């Protein structure tokens, strides 16, 4: 797997890890593209320069299929499969853009934004903001409902903070802690709407099993987990001994 990763260019996130199967050719919006068997439609689309919006997917992690903004249409198949979890097949004809897909993606984005601090939408520069731009959805029709906007920020770690208000529960941090770092210090606590990212038993990050490798910060698409050093005055270095 790593040998394949080397072929990746830095600035592109293919969404799912590369595979090394036999070549498979398919079309993405009519563009023929050849990728190894076992690759995802999402990866093929990125390869074809027809990248699909995504939030829970990143090529450092195995596909997860939770964010539902990467839906596509595949000729001869019902419904709108997630491109990150759908493996390519020879001759597959994939459509990544249509009014219907746009409507669904917009509908999902509205749900995200209904539990996201509105003040942090303009001016932001996270992956979520990129998807906001790609889908053209910057507000939601739901008014003020149940939300996580008042959850306290965890600033215990010296280097990064966790702001649950910006968390979209994509589990990228949890998965990065497991798959990339191998520490398993994070989990999702509770379930359903109450689901939230928790370190160990819901402790501050500093008191948890977290080893502060930063894989979660790296994986976070919303800057819910973000370096303190990016905030003016938000971070003080240690005293000299």
């Amino acid at each position: 797997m790593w040998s394949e990763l080397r072929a990746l260019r830095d600035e592109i996130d293919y969404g799912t890890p590369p595979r090394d199967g036999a070549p498979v050719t398919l079309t993405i919006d009519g563009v023929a593209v050849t990728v190894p068997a076992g690759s995802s439609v999402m990866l093929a689309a990125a390869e074809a320069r027809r990248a699909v919006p995504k939030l829970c997917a990143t090529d450092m992690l195995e596909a997860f299929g939770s964010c539902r903004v990467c839906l596509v249409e595949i000729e001869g198949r019902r419904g709108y499969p997630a491109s990150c979890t759908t493996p390519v097949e020879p001759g597959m004809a994939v459509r990544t853009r249509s009014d219907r897909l746009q409507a669904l993606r917009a509908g999902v984005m509205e749900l995200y934004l209904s539990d996201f601090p509105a003040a942090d939408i303009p001016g932001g520069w996270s992956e979520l903001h990129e998807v906001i731009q790609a889908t053209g959805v910057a507000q939601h029709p739901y008014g003020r409902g149940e939300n996580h906007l008042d959850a306290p920020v965890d600033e215990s770690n010296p280097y990064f903070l966790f702001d649950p208000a910006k968390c979209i529960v994509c589990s990228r941090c949890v998965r990065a802690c497991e798959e990339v770092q191998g520490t398993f210090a994070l989990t999702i606590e509770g379930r359903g709407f109450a689901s939230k990212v928790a370190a160990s038993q819901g402790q501050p990050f500093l008191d948890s099993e977290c080893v502060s490798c930063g894989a979660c910060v790296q994986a976070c698409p919303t800057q819910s987990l973000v370096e303190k050093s990016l905030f003016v005055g938000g971070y003080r270095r240690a005293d000299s001994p």
Partner: protein
Amino acid sequence: MPIPRKPERSVVTTCAYCGVGCGFRAETIGGRVVRMVPWKEGKANHGHGCVKGRFAFDYYDHPDRVKVPMIRGSIEEPWREVGWDEAIAHAATELKRIQGTYGRGSVGAVSSSRCTNEEIFLMQKFARVGLRNNNIDNCSRICHSPTQFGLQATLGAGAASQHFDSILQADVILVVGANPTEGHPVFGSMLKRRVREGAKLLVIDPRRTETVESAHCLADVHLALRPGTNVLVLDSLAHVIVTERLHDESFIRERCHWNEFEQWAALVGHARYSPDVVGPEAGLDPEHIRRAARLYAAGPRSTIYYGLGVTEHSQGSTGVMCLGNLALACGHLGREGVGVNPLRGQGNVQGGSCLGSWPHMLTGYRFVTDDAVRGSFERDWGIELDPEPGLRLPNMFDAALAGTFKAMYIQGEDPVQSDPNQNHVVAAMRSMECVILQDLFLTETAKFAHVFLPGSSALEKNGTFTNAERRVSMVRKVCEPLAGLEDWQITVRLMNAMGYPVHYDHPSQILDEIARLSPAYEGMSFELIERNGSVQWPCNRKDAPDGTEVLHTRSFPRGRANFMLTAYVPTQERTSDRYPLLLTTGRILSQYNVGTQTRRTGNLAWYAEDVLDIHEADARQRGIVDGDWVSIASRYGSTRLRARISERVSQGTVYTTFHFAQSKANAITSDLSDWATNCPEYKVTAVEVVRMQARQAADRAVAAEVSA
């Protein structure tokens, strides 16, 4: 929360902490580094990082940084800030004066594994052409010199046989005297990933480390041996392999010398090394030794990773040879997923080894005693070189105490804190007339220096690092040197002041010189590294234009590999009634080495002091409860630490780190060292631990001492 600022600029560079050598993008705002983002194309880390490289970069512009050169007449005097010209001239004058008074051999130099290849190369060149002797050493003396010796002796190349990614194809992973999840975290994550994928894990370590047991990572066999019995246990593994005929005869016949194998098999096959004899002696269950040996031999792809737990012993080099022998006997070399691999401590220890920063070797692991090799350097440098080996670092201290060694140019090392038998080192330092220290901070060693040359951090210069898998990666200047000069520029100026004129416009010219003079680096150039991201040596235009991932695929550097005879010789360091416990030392995830850098970062939040790990039963016997101050005394000295009752150490063993100067852990380590390389025996010191007076009184006493 406000919206975080977006970095303005990013520069890809290589982490200056451990030997994994992760690629990072250093991002800046207004010229200040604001974050380090793991570089997905970094071939050592594939976009991962750890608490040190990822976050603990803040030391670089810490207020403690010295930004102006300083000199003083004696170590009792206060420092006087001077200009670069004055500092360089003063240093050169002093060196020349001392050489004039005490002879050419009375001065020496130490290079730093935190500096670039180019800087290390220049340091050894400085010693050979500026000081005109071979008194040049580097910090791998005290960590991995036995690796170079032991692997050179068996396999013919003193470096890791594999690239890191190779572990993802291993079926059996043998970790000896290393704790990658703390010491080499990014590689540790890869190891754990492979274990989660089903690889068998064997660990030989006196401590029940994170690698032995943590979430989803559990060693199939953990040989928690008594410190100091590595060679005994490794020979016992070999015993099982040869007596149960688990060795790979065709590999041995094809790639080694059969008669040497027979000689070796006769040695390790002796009943002396049978698990039933070794087990009780090393504190192990003989069955566990057998199981480990069988698993390793069966593979089909078995690989060895080891660390300072192998090298830092009086038989360190022998221990490394044991590992080479094992791999040879089972044919676990020359493919993906196998091999013998040191996990190196500092970022550029491998470079330190490669670049000839040795008293007996020139660049590319070639003896100064070899006329032909020396000749090639003499032709390139246009100067005659000393044909005899110089002094090793510990011998420099010995010589200083004996009165024949008087001056030292130290680049980015802190021997007073890091080297063993601290009292001895301090006495040696005091006896010198001129210590020139080039560093970022006023370290412990600075207390004994006469000239302080403010160096540059890895964020402030260009060059290359060579990591533990022989990978040469680019170090790029992210911001301007705070003191005005990159370290290599300082050395160049000093060399010129010593009367040897040299000039380089850019470190790439130094790498070109290295390539000219070292076969393994023959094909290297900044241009090639720039193009490929990084390049693993050996790299040469003819056979390996893009470098080499796996060594020994078809043949060994000497054609065939050698089995070495590795008889067990117990260390002279023994427990006694007076010193009944064995102290072993190591490191922790959040701190790095002597802590010069990490102690000046937020990493203190995790680990703000060295503590002594002690088994519950040993603690109970001594009336020690968790958090008590204890004094630790050895035959060499004593210090005090707070005790932590720990399940990770066995009864009879205590453990500490040496990240904090005030802990003075090296006040108690012995001056015993490896027979071949003088690598100190940090891993075995007989000690006694005594509970200090009431906690608060001890707090006050220590506070007073620390702030004094």
